[in-house]
């Protein structure tokens, strides 16, 4: 859609959730919305039909709900006026609509900066037609709030909170003129200062609830900044820092990574589309934990991780299972897996049974495993997943006839399935080739 470059492009994740800029928070969502411009305007853009209209603290996002995946953004900073909606007789018969005015450059593009400084701008009135059943009045009032909030303006005036600044890393002198500390001592002092300032923030934040609310944004920013710094630090300074320091850094990094999802999908922000949006957000969220867990993770663990990341606005187990079951309908890279034992797990689609079986087969045909079999923890180590999940895989592989079980005082172990290889008419026949003969050789080698 070449003619759509009136708007700014917006990127979406693989599961169809908008990618937010730092500190951007989703506020509301309307489904089944058309976007048009006033007929008498000279500039034009092709109308956008039936999509989700998402309000964030920084932008308005339009995501088409059809598969052609149009995603465009209108920065709130470009809005020059929001018209109050008039209730007329006409509105009883028509889909509700509201209008706002944005500034555009002469070459027919939305103007993404402070409109006060440049001349030659024109105003374009954009009409939003709400065809769905969403609470558009709430949306509009939230839009007012966000527009007035001017969240985008906060970042352009950097709020340097001292040594935690990530940008001043190149020169020996800091921006305030003092000599920056270098080496391990410097790192330690920085850490110390950072903790002190964190401590101050925490103390202030907990003084009363109002203060907490005021501090919330600052806290998230602080956490984000610390994370950025740590991420940058761990890649560039790993050779100069000692092990202990690295350990504590990693710990802190882990910790901060789990601080949270900046903009959780809530029932309030997504309304009727709550589960759908939650499902997409969950799909994005589980990617990293899944990678760490080797491609499969227990649903209960996901529930804990997800809610911990959300911090507030926790979801119920039922919400989680609904969100997971919706994945079948979307093109997301993860899936919900129900094992015969009733255990439920989230699995990345690349973590297929075939691949797992291939790795298990390689594992059980090693000479040592041919002789003594493998346990669930052996499989867990090879597959890089939790033993409980590994056991599920082993049982599935057993069900497919790949493995056999051996229960003895030594425990529950699995062997490659030889039963199908043994010839019933001649119990003593071992063919010269095949896994049976390999096993015979391996087991007789042990003595």
């Amino acid at each position, binding site marked *: 859609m070449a003619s759509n470059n009136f708007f700014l492009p917006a990127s979406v994740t693989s599961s169809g959730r908008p990618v937010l800029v730092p500190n951007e928070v989703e506020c509301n969502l309307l489904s089944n919305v058309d976007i048009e411009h006033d007929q008498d305007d000279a500039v034009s853009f092709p109308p956008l039909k039936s999509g989700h209209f998402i309000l964030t603290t920084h932008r308005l996002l339009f995501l088409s709900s059809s598969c052609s995946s149009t995603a465009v953004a209108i920065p709130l900073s470009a809005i020059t006026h929001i018209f109050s909606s008039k209730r007329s007789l006409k509105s009883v018969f028509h889909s509700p609509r509201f209008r706002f005015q944005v500034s555009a450059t002469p070459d027919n593009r939305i103007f993404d900066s402070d409109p006060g400084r440049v001349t030659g701008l024109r105003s374009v009135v954009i009409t939003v037609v709400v065809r769905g059943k969403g609470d558009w009045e709430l949306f509009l009032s939230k839009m007012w709030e966000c527009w007035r909030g001017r969240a985008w303006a906060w970042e352009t005036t950097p709020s340097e909170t001292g040594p935690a600044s990530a940008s001043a890393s190149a020169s020996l002198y800091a921006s305030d003129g003092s000599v920056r500390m270098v080496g391990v001592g410097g790192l330690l002092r920085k850490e110390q200062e950072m903790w002190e300032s964190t401590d101050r923030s925490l103390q202030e934040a907990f003084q009363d609830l109002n203060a907490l609310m005021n501090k919330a944004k600052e806290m998230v920013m602080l956490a984000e900044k610390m994370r950025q710094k740590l991420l940058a630090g761990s890649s560039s300074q790993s050779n100069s820092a000692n092990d202990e320091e690295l350990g504590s850094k990693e710990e802190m990094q882990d910790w901060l990574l789990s601080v949270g999802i900046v903009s959780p999908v809530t029932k309030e922000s997504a309304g009727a589309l709550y589960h759908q949006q939650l499902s997409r957000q969950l799909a994005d969220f589980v990617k990293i934990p899944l990678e760490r867990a080797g491609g499969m993770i227990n649903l209960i663990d996901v529930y804990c991780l997800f809610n911990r990341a959300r911090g507030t606005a926790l979801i119920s187990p039922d919400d989680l299972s609904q969100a997971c079951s919706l994945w079948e309908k979307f093109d997301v890279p993860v899936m919900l897996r129900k094992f015969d034992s009733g255990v439920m797990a989230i699995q990345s689609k690349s973590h297929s049974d075939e691949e797992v079986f291939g790795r298990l087969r390689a594992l059980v045909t090693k000479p040592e495993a041919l002789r003594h079999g493998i346990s669930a923890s052996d499989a867990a180590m090879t597959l890089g997943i939790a033993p409980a999940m590994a056991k599920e895989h082993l049982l599935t592989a057993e069900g497919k006839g790949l493995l056999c079980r051996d229960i003895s005082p030594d425990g529950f172990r699995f062997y490659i399935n030889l039963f199908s290889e*043994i010839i019933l008419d001649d119990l003593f026949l071992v063919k010269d080739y095949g896994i049976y003969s390999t096993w015979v050789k391996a087991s007789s080698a042990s003595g």
Partner: protein
Amino acid sequence: MMQKLGDFKLPAFFNYPPYFTLQPVRDTREKQIQLWKELILDYCRTQKVFLILLEEEFPLFSNPVIERSLNNEARETFLSALVSEGRAEWLDKGHRKCLILWHRIQDWADIILGFVKDNGLEDSVMTVEEIRLGIESRGTELHGMDRTILMRALKLLEHKGKVAIFKGTSADDEGVKFSV
């Protein structure tokens, strides 16, 4: 090296630990049961074992080399599979005593008739114990055979009118009159 149980040669899979755990997956279990059936019959035929008592040690049911043995459920499953094919019989309701028929009763009856003909015993009289342990049966499969199975086979022949069984002189022995 080939492992042996007395003079009985054991197959290679006897050292395969899962062979001693009852497999839960259907296809695998079926193959496992078949392998056990064959091995039990083979062993009993060559070792002249007629009776397996589940609660007592049976050499085939444990493998000290790999330190595995069949549990009672597995033993009963494999023997029951033999029973359902007519290759074994439970002697009690509790399924603790199992008679192994590496020859079916009908086959045993045919062997008896063959023995009678080979030795020219048509129309003669023998005691049951003479058939089992006498000079005539020496070197045949009848020698040393289980009395219960022998009686079953004789009863079958009696039913067909080939023999007559009657009470002998001693209380615990019966006489058999062949009329082939």
